[in-house]
């Protein structure tokens, strides 16, 4: 295994508190919520596993009363179990929908889409799964519309609602320290005070590239 300190990006002289802080930051970064229905979900899960192991190794090495395998207090970043693919859901849905979910978790979007297209019952589940397929492809506007329809048809379904919220709410996503919650279209945000334009390389030779402030 690689150097656990290197994985958490802290020196081996870091205090327990510093190690914990570094771990938390990384765990926020690679949290499954940030990669839900991304084609890179598996890579984020690997990263998460790696930092969990690194953290546990350091704490074990230090033996400072943390107990083996403990994650930091309040830490609920226990990997991917809660997001383990679509096969786990859908007990009440009919067999066809289960097949679609299975195809999606295999990453076989083509089959999933085909199975969906031959179903005539366009209920909440149908629109939800259609939305998931769109989201996997990166078709985020159509994903949102399908989730919205799913939520209208099956109001109160927590899974559909969560999918819609995850796609729409910018505030939840990870941002590095020092970066505010930026969104497009909020006229009152920080951008007014930020540089908006680069001056490109200038053939008249007044020193080339520079930053202008609006």
């Amino acid at each position, binding site marked *: 295994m690689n150097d656990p300190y290197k994985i958490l990006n802290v020196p081996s002289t870091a205090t327990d508190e510093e190690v914990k802080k570094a771990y938390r930051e990384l765990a926020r*970064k*690679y949290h499954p919520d*940030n*990669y839900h229905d*991304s*084609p*890179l979900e598996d*890579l*984020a899960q690997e*990263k998460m596993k790696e930092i969990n192991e690194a953290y546990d190794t350091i704490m074990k090495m230090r033996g400072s009363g943390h107990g083996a395998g403990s994650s930091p207090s309040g830490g609920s970043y226990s990997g991917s179990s809660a997001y383990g693919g679509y096969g786990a859901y859908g007990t009440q849905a009919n067999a066809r929908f289960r097949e679609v979910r299975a195809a999606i978790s295999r990453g076989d979007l083509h089959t999933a889409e085909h199975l969906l297209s031959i179903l005539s019952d366009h209920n909440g589940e149908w629109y939800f799964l259609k939305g998931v397929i*769109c989201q996997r*492809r*990166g*078709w*985020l*506007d*159509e994903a*949102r519309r399908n989730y919205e329809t799913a939520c209208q048809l099956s109001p109160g379904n927590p899974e559909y609602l969560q999918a819609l919220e995850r*796609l*729409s709410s*910018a505030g939840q*996503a*990870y*941002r*590095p320290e*020092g*970066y505010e919650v*930026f*969104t*497009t*279209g*909020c*006229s009152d*945000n920080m*951008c007014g005070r*930020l*540089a*908006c*334009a*680069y*001056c*490109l*390389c*200038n*053939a*008249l*030779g*007044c*020193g*080339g*590239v520079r*930053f*202008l402030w*609006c």
Partner: protein
Amino acid sequence: MFGYVRAAPDKLTAEEEQRYRALYCGLCHTLGRRYGAVSRMILNYDFTFLAALLSGAIKTEERRCVASPVKKRTVARENEALDLAADVSVILTYWKLRDGAADSGGLSRRGYGAVARLLGRAYREAARLHPDFDAATCRELERLATLEAERCPSLDKPADTFARLLGSVAGELQDPIQQRIMEQLLYHLGRWIYLVDALDDLKEDAESGNYNPILLRFSLDNGTLTGPAREAMVSTLDASIRQMAAAYELWDFGVWSPIIRSTVYQGLYCVGNAVLEGTFHTAEGRRGARGKKEQV
């Protein structure tokens, strides 16, 4: 590409800013060496950002050039990543100009055509080096033309063509993991660029009747997006930026990390904001007024 990709300078140290400029100059020199002086005019910050995504380590050197004939500048030394960024820039610009010539009439048609011809030789060489990317570009632009002719009312379908086109640059990389990450990052960069460009052209297209998916997807209030339509547009732009950021975090971009980070966590949001507010070109205009010629 259209010049929408900007970093957020306030998040960069002087050294990082300097490095980005050196990369810009390095790409310019690479274009000049590979494709001749004319090709250098296609340079912009979108392509420089692409070079940052593709570059690993960087070595710099001091060089003079047309834009700075007396004082030597720090320039990124030419390397494989810059070569690839230059080749991709040539292919994309060539097809974009061809597209522009097909889209418009009269004088500008001839203008586009003339520049495309100037780039013709450079394009043939770049296409020979990257036949797969060239074929993907050609295929996706054809797909886009079909959707335009059908007046497709979806945002995602036409955006998907440009997104895939840019995503296919990842196919030129060696490492399979890097390929996957870059494909996702470039897909959403392409999607975002396409949609921001459509947003930018909204008023013009509303008047001229040119194809614009945003006009067909939403009902507009006096040529502007308001209420839920505006909210849905913003939400979909932001969602793509978040996908880019999530992809960025999975790969080590070395010295380019601060530039990419400041772009995907701030710069793109600010550009989107300026486009939405209609202030993007006023900022540009101010820049244009200070230095008449923006390209080398």
